[in-house]
């Protein structure tokens, strides 16, 4: 099958490549761009491990073709740190609140939470749980992921994060 030339912006950098139409965006990101922080979990649009930010939307990159991302603006976990290399509020939240154990779901969780907080900077706990309902974690039981996102929400709003009593 003839290959198609694609160009897009990934983590602020213009990138290009030759792909078959059937090449999934996640394979382009991992194999052509060697950005392996975006994980492949279920490959069936359920688990959310491959979530990236595409033109202001959280999408499961295993269910979008690379050719469909022509001209788009994508952020992956490799683009989440602050410009000076320090951890972003969300990354810091996951670290401080122990929001990960094995870490496999973490890039997808952080990218999804990134868009959630852009749309709703101060979500309630219920809104956070609904907001990450397309991402599966098999380690944490979600408790500390929710706290990590609350931590980031507080930090972005410039207030100190106080854990709710359990």
């Amino acid at each position: 099958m003839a290959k198609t030339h694609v160009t897009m912006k990934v983590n602020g950098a213009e990138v290009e490549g030759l792909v078959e139409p059937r090449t999934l965006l996640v394979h382009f990101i991992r194999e052509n761009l060697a950005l392996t922080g975006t994980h492949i979990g279920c490959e069936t649009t359920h688990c959310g491990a491959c979530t990236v930010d595409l033109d202001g939307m959280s999408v499961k990159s295993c269910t979008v073709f690379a050719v469909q991302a022509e001209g788009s603006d994508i952020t992956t976990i490799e683009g989440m740190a602050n410009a000076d290399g320090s951890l972003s509020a969300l990354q810091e939240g996951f670290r401080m609140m122990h929001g990960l154990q094995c870490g496999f779901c973490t890039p997808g969780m952080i990218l999804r939470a990134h868009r959630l907080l852009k749309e709703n900077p101060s979500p309630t706990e219920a809104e956070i749980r609904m907001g990450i309902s397309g991402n599966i974690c098999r380690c944490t039981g979600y408790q500390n992921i929710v706290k990590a996102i609350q931590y980031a929400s507080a930090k972005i709003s410039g207030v100190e994060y106080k854990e709710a009593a359990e």
Partner: protein
Amino acid sequence: MIPGSFSYHRPASVSDAVKLLASLGEDARPLAGGHSLVPMMKLRLAAPTHLVDLHGVAGLRGLRRDGNAIVIGAMTTQHELLASDEIAKALPILHETALLIADPQVRYRGTIGGNVANGDPGNDLPALMMVLGATYRLEGPSGARDVAAAEFYQGAYFTALEPGEILTSVTIPVPPSGHGYAYEKLKRKVGDYATAAAAVVLTMAGGKVASCTIGLTNLHETPLLAAEASQVVIGTALDAAALKQAAAAAQAIMAPAADARGPVEYRKHVGGIMVMRALERAKSRLA
């Protein structure tokens, strides 16, 4: 899991999309949000040799008020439906239902057109469109036509769409203000199709049901309008006896498949419960 090979087309207009689909024949499929088709392609349960991506087609996205109806472009995503104040106000049941479709990431891509045109009995919007009396605009090589949602579904994945036709918009009459509504969906987990679901829109006058429409999702190979069940509650105060009669009348037309969501008897049983819950909640919301 990698799909079979295909050629990718990205037309810029409805007429170009229709021309492509007509000339490429049966091995071509239109691609909307892709969140039903692409997983099927990865499992090799679908193997189109041409995909006609509708994302580049101008004018298929967005919604507008047209008199007493709301017209929604086929490529409008569920996320956009949820973000619309117009929908939340005029068609709150559509807001409620969209929130129960799949998960946030899928809703950024999944479209109203794809959901209603795919013919999957598990999709949530078809039964709702039948309840709301929606019509679908279909455009093909021989022009455009409007088909009522109630006339559109012929079997699992079989619809009134002719080869080369695409669904371009959905027109939904706005129900009377203050109407009661509810979409009750039983599912095993977030992202799952319904084990059973029921949509209800009703009005009451003087404490009695004046009008009522009930739709059923994933309880037959097509979405269903439960006309008999609607009839039995009209004129009642929706007391316990009326609810039970409605559930029984709805169960009489259910013919769900036995699958991982449960055996036939179970799915009919919970289908009846969804009907009763939807009626009760619709009543509680009457303004």
